[in-house]
């Protein structure tokens, strides 16, 4: 499995835009999550973002909140998620990026957490409630252990912050497409294209856009703006949760393929 940056590099070399689906670990159960990782890998996902369920997901809208609540109600623990990743990661080619809030990391201990996820084959990490000012204590050990920490840029970020975040972010830069939480939305704001252009002017690092991208047309638009990657979360989580696990897996298989076709 490649590192996050080398995965982006090889896509860039081939002139391709990365498709990055997001799913919540443990919803409806970890066996299905393991199957979903393999399904998405086979259906064209270039990288996969895996959400660790958390009790207070501040940056998430109703769909991902509900998925996390269901997973926690089933008793899913961080260690179970890491064990599952350890089993699945050798079987897939898409690098796995873990998405987790900061408290579970602190609770385990930063180095212990990084060591465990690295051993399980995780390549990247997104911590939505850890802004640049607080990130140093995670960035330093992560660089030593070999986990790339991806930082986020928001539509509200000032130029000064954009430059500083771009300099520190590893793997790629996560451009949040809306002022808001994650969730399915009907369209994309035009200003995202402008922010992307601006971001491009200050960094050579890959840029992936997420939050609110829920249909192949959105993905196509993001590609047209020139992003290096498209992240699709709530729309994926919602499909996986509908019907039986088998139906959910079939549904994300089709959806992932249609997104891939749209940016191909």
């Amino acid at each position: 499995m490649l590192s996050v940056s080398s995965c982006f590099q090889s896509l860039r070399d081939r002139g391709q835009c990365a498709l990055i689906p997001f799913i919540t670990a443990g919803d409806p159960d970890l066996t299905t999550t393991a199957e979903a990782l393999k399904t998405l890998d086979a259906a064209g996902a270039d990288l996969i973002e895996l959400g660790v369920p958390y009790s207070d997901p501040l940056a998430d809208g109703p769909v991902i909140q509900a998925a996390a609540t269901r997973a926690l109600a089933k008793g899913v623990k961080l260690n179970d998620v890491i064990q599952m990743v350890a089993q699945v990661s050798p079987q897939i080619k898409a690098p796995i990026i873990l998405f987790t809030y900061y408290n579970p990391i602190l609770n385990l201990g930063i180095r212990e957490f990084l060591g465990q996820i690295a051993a399980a084959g995780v390549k990247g990490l997104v911590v939505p409630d850890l802004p640049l000012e607080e990130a140093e204590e995670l960035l330093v050990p992560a660089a030593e252990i070999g986990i790339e920490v991806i930082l986020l840029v928001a539509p509200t970020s000032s130029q000064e912050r954009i430059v500083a975040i771009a300099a520190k972010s590893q793997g790629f830069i996560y451009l949040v497409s809306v002022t808001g939480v994650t969730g399915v939305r009907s369209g994309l704001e035009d200003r995202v294209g402008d922010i992307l252009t601006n971001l491009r002017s200050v960094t050579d690092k890959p840029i992936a856009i997420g939050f609110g991208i829920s249909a192949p047309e959105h993905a196509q638009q993001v590609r047209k703006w020139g992003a290096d990657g498209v992240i699709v979360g709530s729309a994926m989580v919602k499909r996986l949760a509908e019907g039986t696990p088998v139906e959910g897996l079939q549904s994300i298989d089709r959806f992932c393929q249609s997104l891939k076709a749209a940016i191909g």
Partner: protein
Amino acid sequence: MTQTPLSPNQNRQLPLQQPDNLGRFGKFGGKYVPETLMPALLEFEAEYYRHTKDPEFHRQLNELLRDYVGRPSPLYFAERLTERYARPDSTGAQIYLKREDLNHTGAHKINNALAQVLLAKRMGKQRVIAETGAGQHGVATATVCARFGLDCVIFMGVEDMRRQELNVFRMQLLGAEVRPVAAGTGTLKDATSEAIRDWVTNVETTHYILGSVAGPHPYPMIVRDFHAIIGVETRAQAMEKWGGLPDILLACIGGGSNAMGLFHEFVKEPTVRLIGIEAAGEGVDTDKHAATLTKGRPGVLHGAMSYLLQDTDGQVTEAHSISAGLDYPGVGPEHSYLKDLGRAEYYSITDAQALEAFQLLSKLEGIIPALETSHAIAYLETLCPQLTGSPKIVINCSGRGDKDVQTVAKVLKF
């Protein structure tokens, strides 16, 4: 002799020794929020410093605190409560109540809400949001928004809406929209999360009036500074009444705003004991309590590093208290700092003990305290027998209990 000021000194230097530039009280505090909010927090901090340097801001705030809120709040000698704890030789604690319950809207919460709404006006924000537990902060925010013609949305857990029905109606009457939050246990934690999500979404047009000394920097500092008037007045009133400092300050702690407001003026006075009382719910050895400083471990919730009730996996656990205002698994970071420093002491009181104190103050002093405040009153039972001589205790009577009479009537089967 210093007189109790009718209104605070206009040029009073706002206390700034803590937090540091990064918003840290020791290792606690900080800003653990999505990037989308960072510019708004930086802007709010800059605007706070800018406007609080403007004498006109203080003139307007002080005038409203006096004529609209009714400050200064009295420091009342609770004679019959004092008699109850007197020893046979007639020594014993001299108990005073700082009457924040007499403020407009019935609690200390309006000190902060009023000052923040003035800042919101000056920042050009037309929409205000807030979270509320007991409803006191929601009512205070709805009140000041009505006064200044701002749109107001209050997030409140469904369970809290049920137990604080009267306050829901008050907020609606004041023109606010009360948005029910059903997630989690439907209490203050969930309402706060939802308010933060709204702020992330509408940050460009909205000011978030956070109601406690919790949340990301600069809130713990700003909310404390706007409540610090409680301690400033207490100092002057103590000087006037007995020519000295209080010996012990006693206040209840949910997020910790009324306690911080009382303590702040005295943190650097080594002779003054600072005691905070958390909610022990059904007991700190059960899983139904809100005693964060007593039973929690450091962690991150709602943007700040502080003591936190969490399970072994780092998931935030549900708090429990009969009092909606204390029913919170986190606590303001400065309290965590004062605890670790050993500067303040923190203990806890159960639902049952708080109910006893609720009735005690009502019957002995003719003052019906809020259930939150009742926790501080209840600690006298433990504290007074440990004391020698006749120390002066000031209890922050942070709110009145009208909002709680239905809850209490149900429990006591009136």
